[in-house]
């Protein structure tokens, strides 16, 4: 009964864009969190011991090599499990981004021993034992490295939340603008309806119905676009950043992740209905 077709195109495209951007921001947030969690869980209890000149023998220690002496200490200490000596190839692979292949061949690489600890209290004891053995043996605790990284990740997560908030705000402003325009365009019709005894709630419902239909289609379309973009980016990122390592974060989304993702396109039409209802009632408050 109201002439609202004019706002369909404008509101439809704006809301499609908003839903698309909101979904991309939410998915990005999930990805960063899941990537970080995956990385963290893989390295949280990991400690790497750098043993320079590993074949050098230590007279005071039964003439054992430095590496053997380190391994003996590791085997005697409690709360240490899963001792792995990294192969030369693995070490070269780790250092390769920092040095050229020729240089790698000419330098004496340290031995790297990866251990998993099940109790952090063992670390001071381990560090002092290894220092006594040779002062240049270095213990790299990955948990400490994560302190800075985790701040960056949580900052990124907050940024994504802020982006979703901004997108929602723009969506709300667009809806209010569409309502305002719709009321202006339909001023005479609304006046007639008022004279017939229409309450503002009735007019608000007409607007809400229109906004709900437009936003539902926009949300579905925005969600489809986001899904398409997401799958393309997901595959590109895999190739670009992880190479031959299989990292499929999509399969790691839990139920809550999926519910949140579904809630984005579902919530926009509902939010639209709410904002429209309130806007119409406020804008028509003084009209009768």
């Amino acid at each position, binding site marked *: *009964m109201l002439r609202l077709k004019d706002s369909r195109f404008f509101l439809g495209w704006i809301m499609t864009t908003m839903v698309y951007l909101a979904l991309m921001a939410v998915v990005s947030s999930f990805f960063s969190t899941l990537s970080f969690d995956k990385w963290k869980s893989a390295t949280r209890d990991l400690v790497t011991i750098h043993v320079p000149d590993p074949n050098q023998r230590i007279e005071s220690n039964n003439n054992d090599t430095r590496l053997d002496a380190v391994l003996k200490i590791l085997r005697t200490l409690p709360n240490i499990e899963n001792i792995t000596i990294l192969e030369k190839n693995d070490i070269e692979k780790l250092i390769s981004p920092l040095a050229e292949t020729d240089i790698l061949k000419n330098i004496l690489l340290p031995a790297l021993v990866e251990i998993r600890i099940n109790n952090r209290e063992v670390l001071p004891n381990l560090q002092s034992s290894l220092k006594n053995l040779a002062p240049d043996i270095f213990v790299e605790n990955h948990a400490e490295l994560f302190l800075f990284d985790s701040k960056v990740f949580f900052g990124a997560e907050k940024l994504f939340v802020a982006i979703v908030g901004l997108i929602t705000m723009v969506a709300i402003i667009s809806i209010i603008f569409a309502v305002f325009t719709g009321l202006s365009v339909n001023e005479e*019709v609304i006046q*007639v*309806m008022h*004279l*017939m*005894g229409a309450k503002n709630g009735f007019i608000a419902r007409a607007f809400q119905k229109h906004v709900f239909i437009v936003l539902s289609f926009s949300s579905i379309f925005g969600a489809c676009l986001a899904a398409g973009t997401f799958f393309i980016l997901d595959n590109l990122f895999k190739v670009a950043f992880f190479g031959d390592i299989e990292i499929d974060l999509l399969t790691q989304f839990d139920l809550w992740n999926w519910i949140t993702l579904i809630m984005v396109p579902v919530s926009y039409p509902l939010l639209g209905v709410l904002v429209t209802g309130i806007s119409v009632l406020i804008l028509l408050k003084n009209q*009768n």
Partner: protein
Amino acid sequence: MVRFENVEIRYRGKAPLLGDVNFDLGEGKFHFLTGKSGSGKSSLLKAIYMGLSPSKGKISLFGRDTSSITKKEIPDIRRRMGIVFQDFRLINELSVRENVELPLRIFGTKSSIIRRHVPELLEWVGLGDHLDDFPASLSGGQQQRVAIARAVIARPVLLLADEPTGNVDDIIAERLLYLFNELNRTGTNILIATHNENLIGKFDYPVLRIEDNRLLSSNPVMPLERKVN
């Protein structure tokens, strides 16, 4: 039903359009309201449907003083009225059927009842073949009948019609008046504003006449009357 006591109507910053208006429209009555163009007929109707507040005096509608009616209550009061506007005010985006359905939709009437009553009424006003036409495709007289059908579809207690015959020829005008007469017989109170003296003369109904910013009446039954000289 409608009672005006010493009512003055003036638009902001202007001289009074109508002053010292007194009349009482009883139940089940049919009245004409006449006067020259610009005499204040439409403003008087506007004051009745609460589109205009009096600058002085008291208006009572259905036993209630309009000054005590809150904004929230206005729709309920208006639902007891049907209004035929001089310029029809049909909604061009809606079909004839949808235009006439509108008051019922506003009142929350069941769709099954709407589907049954609207075609019946449109048939009665001679527009049974134009249900799905849009107002722009209709003649002035047909639009007038759509406006009337829309005003009466919800069986109002009071029907206000502003120059309902202004855009039609005399034959159609007379037919419309007979239509209003039928409505009045079914219990609807009718107040028709018109400057068509010939038409008024054909019916024996009381006439409220506006002259020199005053309301005069030809009906001696009305308690707050001013008789035409």
